[in-house]
């Protein structure tokens, strides 16, 4: 087995021993890489990996407190929450004008404190969703916070909101029953709960939270994205409820609520709430503005110019939209009004900015993508037949028959199929331009996380042709994947890029297959691989390796090779060689690679790691 994995016929002699060290034997527990593929095969997983993976065997304390960044976040985030709670409590308890309310005691202090915290959370919750603003500020702020973790942050705020809602609501149940019992105000508890604005909006917000939180569970999101997507738009009503929660003037020093006929319909003379809506409404307004702007932008002229169907089942949509400017490694939202005029689905852009079109590759894995396949007349059954034919062809003879990389173009002028209208929104995600400021770029894609590299590799290739590579001298591309054949379209792209390489040392493709390999497959590989020019699995000149990459030895070897001057001829004269790693994939792997990077850095070679770049 090891001979299969190691036998690289092509690369220059000094690379050979280097490569063999990348290899680590296949183990029986290879299934530990379980990539979540989102709903569509191609959804770029910017997933801010909640570092809760049990695989790491790390203690909760270690994770939350012994990691400086996380510690800083925890101190800041929970610190401000506790501060607002304490301040809310204090300002209520010490306010002489609210002496009447203060007769209720602890419950009113707690409810006011928690209320202020909730206002803070209500202001924060939308900020991570300001996608366009984040896209603009992210490149400038990567040093400060991992901006791609915006959904993670959104969730942290939501968890905090759930907790403080519980505190706030519980305290108010006590408040209102005590108001009724003491008759400090001539009302019953039910009156306050169900006839006054504070109570009504509060109960509605709780109900909306129940629906939003339950449908946002990752299990539901994966099953039925629509349920999550539509339900999450209840946020609109939630925010309205939040901004109007205090309009009932519950916190007052007068007997009756002091309402006025003009906005905001209560006087601040006697209504002594925190008036937090004046602050928290701004993220809401900006978010609303963003949604409007996205709608306007999406309406600009867009045309689906071509659809290519790859035998592996991936559909390549080539879209022309002159107003759409993007850089390599970004992603977009796609809408097909014919299928649904509300849903926007995220896809990674697979074309390079130099291409005259924007392309996305879509695998038929979810209901939306399958519906799209049906619409284009290439539903799952058609694709299956095509794949089979292609596989047969590939088995017989790579060159004469149909190779796996061949695709079928859907041409509306020949066939009866018309192309649907599409709308795209974006781009989102950070550009990968700084690849060119490194001498060596290590691009690592794991599983579905390989998709942004399609665009980046193409982009590098275009720049290489124009001779505008910056300081980039070599590219190491790693693809760690459970079963490569399911990503046939990517293989064909890699084939093109590989074939176009004049300098065999510039780009090296390393593919690691982590799948458990059966005996039949093993023999098949052994028989077909020996002496063949192309790898039998991927049809690339680069050999597929089996098992998981050992990052420490990979980086260690790379460092040694660079220091010895073998890797980059002539680089020894330089003071410091910069090796930038760009990773997209699951967090467990990110961590292992980052550790390897940190460990291998020395005074002459600087390894940097960027996970949040895509």
């Amino acid at each position, binding site marked *: 087995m090891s001979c299969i994995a190691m036998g690289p016929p092509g690369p220059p002699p000094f690379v050979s021993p280097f490569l063999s060290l990348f290899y680590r034997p296949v183990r029986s527990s290879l299934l530990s890489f379980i990539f979540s593929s989102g709903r569509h095969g191609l959804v770029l997983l910017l997933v801010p990996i909640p570092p809760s993976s049990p695989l790491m065997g790390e203690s909760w304390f270690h994770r939350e407190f012994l990691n400086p960044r996380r510690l800083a976040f925890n101190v800041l985030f929970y610190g401000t929450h506790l501060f607002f709670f304490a301040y809310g409590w204090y300002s209520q308890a010490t306010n002489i004008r609210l002496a009447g309310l203060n007769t209720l005691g602890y419950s009113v202090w707690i409810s006011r404190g928690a209320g202020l915290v909730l206002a803070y959370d209500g202001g924060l919750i939308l900020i991570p969703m300001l996608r366009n603003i984040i896209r603009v500020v992210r490149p400038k702020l990567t040093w400060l916070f991992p901006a791609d973790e915006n959904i993670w942050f959104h969730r942290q705020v939501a968890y905090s909101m759930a907790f403080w809602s*519980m505190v706030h609501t*519980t305290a108010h*149940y*006590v408040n209102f*029953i005590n108001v*009724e*019992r*003491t*008759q400090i105000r*001539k009302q*019953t*508890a*039910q009156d306050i*709960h169900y006839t006054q604005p504070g109570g009504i909006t509060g*109960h509605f917000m*709780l*109900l909306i939270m*129940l629906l939003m*939180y*339950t*449908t946002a*569970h990752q*299990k*539901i999101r994966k*099953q*039925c*994205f*629509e*349920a999550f997507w539509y339900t999450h738009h209840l946020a609109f009503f939630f925010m309205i409820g939040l901004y109007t929660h205090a309009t009932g003037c519950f916190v007052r020093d007068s007997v009756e609520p002091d309402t006025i006929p003009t906005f905001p319909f209560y006087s601040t003379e006697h209504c002594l709430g925190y008036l937090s809506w004046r602050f928290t409404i701004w993220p809401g307004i900006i978010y609303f503005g963003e949604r409007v702007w996205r709608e306007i932008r999406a309406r600009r002229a867009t045309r689906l110019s071509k659809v290519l169907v790859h035998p592996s089942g991936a559909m390549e949509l080539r879209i022309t939209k002159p107003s759409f400017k993007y850089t390599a490694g970004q992603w977009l939202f796609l809408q097909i009004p014919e*299928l*649904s005029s509300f849903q926007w689905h995220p896809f990674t852009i697979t074309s390079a900015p130099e291409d005259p079109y924007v392309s996305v590759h879509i695998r038929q894995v979810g*209901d*939306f993508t399958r*519906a799209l396949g049906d619409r284009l007349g290439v539903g799952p059954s058609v694709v299956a037949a095509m794949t089979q034919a292609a596989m047969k062809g590939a088995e017989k003879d790579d060159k004469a028959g149909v190779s796996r990389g061949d695709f079928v173009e859907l041409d509306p002028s020949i066939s009866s199929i018309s192309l649907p209208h599409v709308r795209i929104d974006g781009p989102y995600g950070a550009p990968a331009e700084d690849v060119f400021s490194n001498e060596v770029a290590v691009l690592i894609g794991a599983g579905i996380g390989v998709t942004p590299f399609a665009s980046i590799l193409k982009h590098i290739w275009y720049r290489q042709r124009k001779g505008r590579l910056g300081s980039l001298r070599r590219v190491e591309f790693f693809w760690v994947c459970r079963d490569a054949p399911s990503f046939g379209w990517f293989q064909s792209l890699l084939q093109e890029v590989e074939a176009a390489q004049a300098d065999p040392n510039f780009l090296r493709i390393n593919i690691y297959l982590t799948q458990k390999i059966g005996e039949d497959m093993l023999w098949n590989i052994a028989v077909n691989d020996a002496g063949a020019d192309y790898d039998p699995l991927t049809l690339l000149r680069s050999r597929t390796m089996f098992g998981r990459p050992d990052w420490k030895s990979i980086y260690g070897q790379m460092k040694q090779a660079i220091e010895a001057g073998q890797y980059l001829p002539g680089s020894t004269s330089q003071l410091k060689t910069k090796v930038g790693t760009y990773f997209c994939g699951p967090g467990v792997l990110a961590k292992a690679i980052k550790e390897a990077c940190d460990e291998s850095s020395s005074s002459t070679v600087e390894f940097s790691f960027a996970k949040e770049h895509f």
Partner: protein
Amino acid sequence: MGNLIWHEYSRFVSITATVYAIWAGFFGLFYRKFFWDFVGGTLRDPGGLQAPPGAAIFVSLIIKAPVIPIMAMILGMVILCIEMPLPAIKGLSLHRSLVVRVILLLFQTFLTILFYQGTNAAIWSFIAAGCYIRAIMLGEEMAEAKGNRGRSGQA
């Protein structure tokens, strides 16, 4: 479009509603109030609402002794044991029964709607029950847990 598995969704609603019910029942021990006392009740100053004589049974079960909140808490814990589920219940057909869940949740709705703190839990439990009914109507069935789950070295 969409392929929502309703009983898996209902589980989340049910767990949320049930945790609320237990919390509500707990506070019902300390602040005892019959929720429906405003129907025909008299407002005392001080003292609050006093339920009409017709509701004497609820006054004795909620205010004099918090029997209903305690029952709601126990029922809530039973539901949680089934939903989470407790290891001992995991293999039983009870764990996979959607009908049992509907009945328990409707019973929870009934119990929690009677006392002051429980109204939201009642509404939410009712929603959960409705979702489970939808799952039953769609013919969903809960798969039996795999025997080898969590045991290593046997696969």
